[in-house]
Each structure stands twice: as structure tokens, then as C-alpha cells.
């Protein structure tokens, strides 16, 4: 929200790229940038912790530890000194989803550097989403695509793992390849979906829909009010009483 709304409150010092600013203690790093006078272009996206635009690294004086966070999700702390890593060069394998298989060969062909992984765990420590990055890399090296997909599911592709990887691997792109392989080839396909697509293409609903499109508002309201509502706690095999429009 606009900074006008920030009420008078305790100010804390933070160091944006080494420069000292005093900002209200309740702000996120992102809002602190704006409070300090920055207009963000890079390093700001959804402002809700899902787009991965605002990866940030910081340290505290006297501590060797590199801390990480998403700027839109991390509240400022006194004396943190920080910088955003809004972009980091990444490798991107190119593949035709129709022609590949969910195997280790596919992963290695798209990303040969995958096998350079040292299992040093720096990636895991660099992940603002608390993802076990090293573990999914291990799964990738074993060719366990399902595990790779499952462990990496929450990835926001901010690139902090890639920025810090000593083996120069782009983990998050390997992860999305793994997830797509899983979604397309390993997860069982939805038969009911395929059946519905076929029914729609055959024109099964054509007449009833065209009928609705020609119905006047009052009659539509009546049909709407009379819809049978599937109970919220109903089982998967629930069926409606009226099956004429199925």
C-alpha cells in the first residue's frame, strides 16, 4: 500500500547495497526499498511470494552467514545489509516434450552439467522457499523424476540456488523439466477428462447449449435457481438426480 499509510513507528537502520537508511520496523524489504525512495523496476513482481522476482541476499554485521529471502516476504531487521539478485544468467535446455522420455538420459541431455553436482547443500541453504534443493538434485542424478518433481513443486524459480552453486548448475530449470516430465508421462492420465473432450468434440452438448443461449433472462434465472447443488461433503462418485443435461 502507499507509504503514506505507514504510521509513525519505530525506525530501524538497514543497509541497501551498503548505504544506510532508516525504515519502519514493520516493513518488508521490498517496502523498505520504496520507503527509502527507490522506484522498483527490477526485483519486484507479484508482491505476494510466488513469482520469484525479488530474491534477496543479506548479512548481519559480525556474522559470516549469508541469509536469503524474498524481498516481498521478509521483514527488515536492524543492521541487515542486503542486495537483490533480480536476475542471474541461467542455462535453459531446449526439448520437444512430445519426443522425450521421463529418464535420466533426458535430464542429462538437456543439462549435462547436472552430473557436476557436488552435493554440497549450498543450494538448499540458499532457497527462500525452504525447498530441499540438494535432495531433488540427488533425485535427478538417480533419474528419480517423480521425486524430483515432488520435492521441487513449490519452487518459485527465483534463481538464488543457481547464483550460489559452485558447480554452476541451474537447478530450477532442471526441476521444471522434471515436473513437466512427471505431469506428462508419469502421473496417470485422467480418463474422465479424455472422455469429456471426446464428448464435446462430438457435439454432445451442442443442442442443449444452443438452447440455453436462446433462453430469455427470466427463464434462465429459473433454471439457475433450480440447479441441483452437489453437496460439499459429497463423495467422488456422487451423481445428480436429474441426468438430462449430462
Amino acid at each position, binding site marked *: *500500500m502507499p*507509504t*503514506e499509510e505507514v504510521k509513525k513507528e519505530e525506525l530501524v537502520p538497514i543497509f541497501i547495497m551498503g548505504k544506510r537508511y532508516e525504515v519502519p520496523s*514493520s516493513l518488508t524489504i521490498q517496502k523498505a526499498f*520504496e*520507503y527509502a*525512495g527507490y*522506484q*522498483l*523496476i527490477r526485483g519486484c*513482481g*507479484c*508482491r*505476494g*511470494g*510466488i*513469482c520469484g*522476482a525479488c530474491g534477496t541476499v543479506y548479512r548481519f554485521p559480525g556474522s559470516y552467514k549469508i541469509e536469503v529471502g524474498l524481498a516481498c*516476504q521478509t*521483514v527488515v531487521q536492524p543492521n541487515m545489509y542486503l542486495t537483490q539478485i533480480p536476475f542471474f544468467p541461467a542455462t*535453459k535446455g531446449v526439448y520437444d*516434450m512430445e519426443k522425450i522420455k521421463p529418464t535420466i538420459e533426458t535430464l542429462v541431455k538437456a543439462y549435462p552439467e547436472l552430473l557436476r553436482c557436488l552435493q554440497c547443500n549450498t543450494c538448499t541453504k540458499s532457497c527462500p522457499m525452504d525447498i530441499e534443493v540438494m535432495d531433488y538434485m540427488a533425485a535427478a542424478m538417480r533419474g528419480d523424476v517423480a521425486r524430483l518433481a515432488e520435492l521441487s*513443486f*513449490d519452487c518459485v*524459480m527465483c534463481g538464488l540456488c543457481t547464483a550460489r552453486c559452485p558447480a554452476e548448475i541451474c537447478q530450477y530449470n532442471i526441476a521444471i523439466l522434471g*515436473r*513437466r516430465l*512427471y*505431469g*506428462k508421462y508419469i*502421473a*496417470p492420465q*485422467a*480418463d*474422465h*477428462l479424455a*472422455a*469429456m*473432450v471426446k464428448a464435446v468434440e462430438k457435439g454432445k452438448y451442442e443442442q*442443449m*447449449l444452443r438452447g*440455453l*443461449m436462446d433462453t430469455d433472462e427470466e427463464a*434462465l*434465472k429459473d*433454471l*439457475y*435457481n433450480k*440447479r*441441483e447443488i*452437489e*453437496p*460439499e*461433503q*459429497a463423495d*467422488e*462418485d456422487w*451423481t445428480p438426480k436429474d441426468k438430462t*443435461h*449430462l
Partner: protein
Amino acid sequence: MPYTRELKELIKKVEATRSARIEKKRRGEEFHLLSLKEREERLKKYHPDFKEGSRKEIRVGPSKGYAISPEIVDLLEAKSRVNPDFIDLNKVTYETDVLILGGGGAGTAAALTAQENGAKVLIATKLRHGDANTMMAEGGIQAATKGTKDSPYYHYLDVLGGGHFKNPPELVYTLVTEAPKVVAWLENLGCMFTKSPEGRLMTLHGGGTCRKRMHCAADITGAEIMRTLRDEARNRAEHIKVLEFSPAVELILNEHGHCAGAVLYNLETEEYSVVKAKAVVLATGGSGRLHMQGFMTTNHYGATGDGLILGYRAGVKLCFLHAVQYHPTGAVFPEQAEGLLITEKVRGAGANVLNIEGEQFVNEREPRDIESSCFIRECTEIGKGIPTPAGKVGIWLDSPMIEILMGEGAVKREFPGKFILFKRFGIDISKEPMLVYPTLHYQNGGLEYNSRCETSVPGFFAAGEVSGGVHGENRLMGNSLLDVTVFGRIAGVSASLYAKEKAKDGKLNLDHVRRYHRELEEAGIITDRVAPMLLPDYSNPNVREHQLTAHYLGTIR
């Protein structure tokens, strides 16, 4: 920030009524749904759209006299960011078959189908590829995919009822019949939808649905769809080029009156450049960052309604923009998470909404506009909202119910994104309820288009949130991800066909911008405001006072 002592005390009242509410739920007893008449009364009395001053007439352009949000009117009644005389249209920087403005769900889906139809594609987008509201959509995507209990017929009725029966039928027909096809398309691209071990897609209810047809990928469905589409576009980089941080600031027409490109602005080098194209797809998204009536928003940083301005100046009419969508459940606590979307899926999974006494006052699955109106009523006229330490007011969303209804660990499993986010603030949403209030969420209306995504300007197509009609006056949950994928794909096909068969080369011009400027003048509108806005300005006004040499043009120097 964890809940304060005062709030923890109030949570006890929620806990006190919880087991009785769970029992009711298990018996299938629901809080009564409002009738259409009751809905209308609540809407007119409490919805922000009906508040005095919430609408203002546009004084110029093709929809002159149409009353919509003043925040959008102000931008429509602004000048171009750049004097058309300064732009040399003979110097073409990029040339392409199909130019797509916007790199979100609709734009990327359009890029894929246009490329499949043999077009050379250029995507120009304001921030990064994929930085869009699509990425933030959480709950799911609607489609009738279970033939034993659902069909496009019921989906059609639900869409119409949600939209107050005002939606153009042809658009809704297209939406609901294409729906199963796009879900299959996404499954085939490798989207990890939540499924049973046998492959049955998990489906839940949303507000205003008569069948459970919301498909999801945990609670990050939009992100899963967006990152998959983007990855696919990147696999086709040879034919789909992407220009990031390069928003369009004006459309370019040609001597035949056809759309033939756009003027782009490089946000970093501050250069303007000319793109010549055989067809243009506008997919720039919505406008939550205009903060209508001062509301907080769930929207992306770039959601400033740019496309409306571009299309309107080129002569395309606006529709359904008088209806703004407020999502019932935006976070109001902790303050750092303010405005953050709490997916409707939480209510779809069974969580009640409650007042300060821990009492239900509305069914949790009314359409969004109705649900929001009831929240506002409870917090204002009834006075049973929950006050927050920051002086706001909210409603309880009883997420721990899900843990009891669906089994231990369900909240973390079904809502991993929200679970970790609140955990960071010291709140365990599997044990403590969330505090929510309506938040600006979606632009129901937009530029007029048809089911082939054509607008009134030849060669100019629109898809996604920037367009208006399919949702009528109120979109239902799960129909925006559906909208962007269905109409994005159609726009790509239409634009590539147009580029191949109908596009007519001609001299480029910006005469429509000059004409628009003249019209502003004739209407007596004297302003130094420029549009599109491009980015909202959240920089500190006290600092800005000292930025003596910064000459601002809108919000970008």
C-alpha cells in the same frame, strides 16, 4: 507477527463454536444460500461498486458517457506518454508476424498457438516473462470434466448466474466448451494437476458453482500453469522472441486503419522503439494497482490497466468495466501480508467464515461479489467485524476446520504456499484461523471483443483480463485461468490466420493518438497526466520532495 493476545482471546470464540459447525458440515447442513433477490439487495447496499462516487462518466472516446471507476477514467482522459510527432515510424526496430503485448498466461498461450500456426512471434512485456496475475492465481481452473455429474451446460448456467445474466452468450459458450480441451492441453504440456493415484483430477467447489469442477495444482495452480507455458515458449525461442521490461505505450495503425504494430518503451534505457507486425494481440491484464477507492489489492505490480488505454485510443469500446471484483478474502493480518490473496479454495475445502462472536453470517460459497458484500455488511452495519492492531477490521476464515474435515496435515498438503507464508509470520493456519477482508482482485470488464478475440479494429485481437464480456458483471473463481488459456489460445490462432491471409501492408501512423489528443482538448480536458501508467508509485513522498532534478513522466523518470 503472530496473533496478539487480544486476537488470541477472540480466537477462543471461534474454537468454541467449531465442533458444532463441523458436525453440521458433516451432516450436510449448510448456512442458507441467498436467493437471487436477496443477492441483489446485498449487492446494491454494500458492494463498493454501488457506493457514491465509485463511478464517473468518460468524456471522450468510443465509450463516451459510460460511467466507470474514476481511477480508470483519469487514465483514459490523459495524454499519450510521447508526442506522436517525435516518433519516426520509418525506423522499424523489430518486425514480426504476430506481436503479443503482455507475457502472462493469455499472451504466452497466444504465442504458442500462433507459433504452431506458422507465425513468427514477438512477445513484448512490461516486467519479466510470466510476471502477471496468472502467476498469482491460486485456487484453480474450472472445467466440466466429470461426465457422470457435470457438463458444459451447468458450467454455462453457473457463469451466467455469477455474471448477473449479462454475459454475451457466445463468449460463455466458447469458454465452457473449450474448458475441458484446455485442461487436457495443459495436462499434455506436463502441468502437475492434483490427482488421485488412478489419475482422477481432484475437483472442488468454488463460490457460485453447482458442481465441483475446480481443478488445481495444490494452491499454486496459476504459477504451475504459468511456469509450464513459459517453459514451453522458451523451448520454441527460435520462433517466439521475448522482450522483457519493454511495455507498449501506443498501438500503431496503418493507412488502411488496420493495427500494424506498437511503440515500445524500454524501462531501463528509456528508449522508445517501433515494432511492425501483421497482427497484434493485446494481453496486458488487469488494473488492481490503480487501487480503486483506496482498496488494497491482490494484483501483480504491473497491473495498471495499460491495455485499456492503448485499445481505447485506437477506437475499441469498453464494456463491463463498471463492475470491479473485490475478492472476499484478502489477508488483513499480519500487516506485512496485507492484501495478499487467500484462495477461495480454502472455503471450497470447507472453512467457514465467522464474525467476532464465532458465528456464521453467510454461506462461504456465495459468488464473490455477494460474499464480499456480506463481509462488508457484517463489519459495518452489523458491527461484528474483528478489529486488527493496525486499526483495520476483518472476518475470521476458519482454516483449522479443513484439518478436521480432511484429516491431519490437510492444510499443509492442500495449501503449501499459504502454510509456509503464514508460518514465517508465526501463525499456524492449520491451528489458527486467518483474518480476511475484501480486496481489489479482478477487472471484470475491459475491451469489447468476440469469441474469435477480434476487436473492432482489424488486425487487433484481445485476450484475458484486458478484455470484457465473458464474465459479465462478476467472474466466478477458477474462470480467470480458464479465460486466459481458452481465449489466449484462440487469439493466437486468430492473429496468425489474420497475419497469413488478411493483413495488408501499408504506411504506419499514429493519427489515432493525435485525434484522441484533439478530442481531449475539445472536451476541455487540460491535463499533464500521461497514460498508460506502467508502474504504480509507492516511493516515499518525503523523499520525492528532495528529488529536485527528477522530471517525472507519470511514475517513471
